[in-house]
């Protein structure tokens, strides 16, 4: 099927979507007025969304787009390769990018000093380009380069939260240390793969590895390094220690952007390497899936959910909940079946939407009333009804209430687990969903059932979040409902992705 863009735009879309934000990012950095920088960033993310949507349309029905960078044909040159597995992730990242940029128009006024705003948008666009690049590229070393581009920009962005909360600096530093270790592990793995196969192109690598089969020890070591490196990046349980701090103290727009996209892009890479570069039918990979990813996923679901219950800072509640949700996705991956993969993939997309909405709403509460603690949520339903309603919708979706996007993916995961005969996993999903009811319910109960606090004997004045914030927030909240009632589109995309993963090669 073809896309809706015409001519060279459609042909060049795989590379434009990465290069455009990278160039505009550099231009943003030298803009004298922060509003101009914002406008540039907003237009860029919009164009990227259009390109991503076009790519999704073009890759439907198992179409694969290959773009040879600089005219050097793969496997010698760098190849950008779009298929059913990465096109939806591109769309997710760029749409969330648009919403967060729109949101940042208001939120930066409260969080970032005026002279730092233009560099803020520059760093944001470069991080955005890095994420898109690591998803687009079909070259293993190029993945590392983009991984680091996005990471370095993210460290800077997290540290910019320092004017709001000084702990942002400490968190950014921890993130930098762990993120760099993760990326270095990944590049060690790529090095071993290059040693063994003599190529960096993923398709070519997959062909060469398929010939070697189970006998290559070097490729097993490479696999271990890559899984650990990506595990750090995607906040797999026990490697997630950078995440709560980085999510809690960064600027609100960045928190939402990171929560919705950064770990998702890393998870996509895990999908890509485990299933299309390596052959998942090999014994050591099957064992890793079952005994490492699925088991750590389930442990993470429990431990992180319990930790979420005992946090007093709402941002940290949601951060720990993210770790738990990554556990669901890893469980889906760990099953290694078409159903499980598809469920994990749908959850990746849905969770991106849901967590994005939750963090945006949380940022709006902070923007208006400086609220970050769960105990301060009292009466928010009456003070900021529209914002709180969107938060509630997203919270219900996170829990997995029928009629929301969260239910679709959790139900699919349950079906996959039952189909696989993993009844312990079924139990784990149900129990951790109840834990989610507890930690999200705490906020909802305070917001809707408790009276609003009084100032000088009068209830606090009703003040909604500014319009740019509400627009983005409600877009995501409505998406969470629409994908819950009519799940055919995301499920179709996920099935396409699962087909790419199991269809025997890229």
């Amino acid at each position: 099927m073809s896309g809706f863009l015409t001519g060279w735009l459609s042909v060049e879309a795989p590379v434009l979507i990465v290069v455009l934000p990278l160039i505009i990012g550099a231009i943003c950095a030298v803009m004298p007025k922060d509003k101009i920088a914002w406008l540039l960033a907003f237009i860029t993310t919009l164009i990227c969304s259009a390109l991503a949507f076009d790519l999704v349309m073009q890759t439907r029905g198992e179409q694969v787009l290959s773009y040879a960078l600089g005219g050097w044909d793969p496997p010698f040159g760098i190849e950008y390769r779009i298929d059913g597995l990465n096109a939806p992730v591109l769309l997710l990242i760029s749409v969330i990018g648009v919403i967060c940029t729109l949101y940042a128009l208001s939120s930066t006024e409260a969080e970032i000093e005026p002279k730092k705003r233009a560099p803020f948008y520059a760093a944001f666009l470069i991080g955005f380009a890095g994420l898109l690049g690591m998803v687009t590229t079909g070259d293993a070393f190029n993945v590392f380069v983009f991984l680091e581009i996005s990471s370095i920009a993210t460290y800077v962005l997290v540290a910019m939260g320092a004017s709001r909360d000084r702990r942002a600096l400490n968190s950014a530093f921890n993130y930098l240390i762990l993120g760099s270790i993760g990326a270095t592990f990944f590049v060690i793995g790529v090095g071993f793969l290059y040693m063994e196969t003599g190529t960096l192109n993923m398709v070519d690598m997959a062909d060469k590895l398929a010939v070697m089969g189970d006998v290559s020890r070097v490729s097993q070591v490479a696999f271990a390094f890559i899984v650990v490196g990506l595990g750090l990046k995607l906040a797999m349980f026990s490697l997630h220690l950078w995440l709560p701090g980085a999510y809690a103290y960064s600027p609100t727009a960045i928190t939402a952007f990171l929560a919705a996209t950064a770990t998702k892009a890393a998870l996509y890479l895990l999908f890509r390497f485990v299933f299309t570069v390596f052959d998942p039918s090999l014994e050591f990979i099957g064992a890793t899936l079952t005994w490492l990813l699925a088991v750590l996923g389930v442990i993470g679901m429990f431990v992180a959910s319990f930790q979420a219950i005992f946090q007093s800072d709402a941002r940290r509640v949601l951060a720990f909940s993210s770790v738990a949700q990554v556990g669901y996705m890893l469980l889906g991956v760990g099953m290694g079946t078409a159903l499980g993969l598809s469920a994990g993939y749908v959850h990746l997309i849905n969770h991106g939407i849901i967590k994005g909405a939750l963090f945006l709403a949380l940022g709006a509460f902070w923007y208006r009333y400086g609220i970050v603690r769960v105990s301060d949520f009292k009466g928010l339903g009456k003070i900021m009804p529209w914002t709180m309603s969107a938060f509630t919708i997203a919270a219900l979706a996170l829990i997995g209430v029928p009629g929301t996007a969260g239910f679709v993916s959790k139900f699919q995961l349950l079906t996959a687990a039952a189909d696989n005969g993993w009844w312990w996993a079924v139990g784990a999903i149900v129990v951790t969903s109840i834990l989610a009811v507890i930690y999200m319910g705490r906020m909802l109960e305070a917001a809707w059932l408790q009276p609003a606090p009084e100032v000088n004997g009068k209830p606090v004045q009703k003040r909604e979040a500014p319009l740019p914030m509400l627009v983005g927030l409600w877009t995501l909240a409505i998406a969470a409902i629409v994908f819950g009632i009519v799940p055919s589109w995301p499920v179709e995309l996920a099935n396409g992705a699962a087909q790419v993963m199991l269809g025997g090669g890229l």
Partner: protein
Amino acid sequence: MLSEILSHFNYIVVIFLMMTGLYVVFAADNLIKKLVGLSVFQTSVFLLYITMGKVSGGKPPIIEKSYDSHGDGYGEAAGKAAEVLYSNPLPHVLILTAIVVGVATLAVGLALVVRIREVYGTIEEEEIDRINYGFNIDGVDEAASGDGS
């Protein structure tokens, strides 16, 4: 045994550096020392890549231009290039990129340490954790907005 060690000398150095770097990152309390450890760790990877590019008896990958020929002699040189054994240049190029990435990471890290020193007055992690902990317990969550900027 000895020949085994000698033939893998580079790899042994790589493993030694890698473990040293990683240990320093985890064990050091001082943030600068952590960054030093991280640099050592990343450098070990550079060495790993350079090592894998080496071909026994291979020359540096520069096409030899023949001196005895008149004119520019590129055609001849290309013919000669096929006969000469070269080391693999690709890992070197990759590592150039990785070095740039490493420098950028280090620069951001050092800049962060400077800011941490300004705000917390210390670069010892234990101290910072203690300050943050007290901060959390006192419940003055947004009080930092004043000192932070």
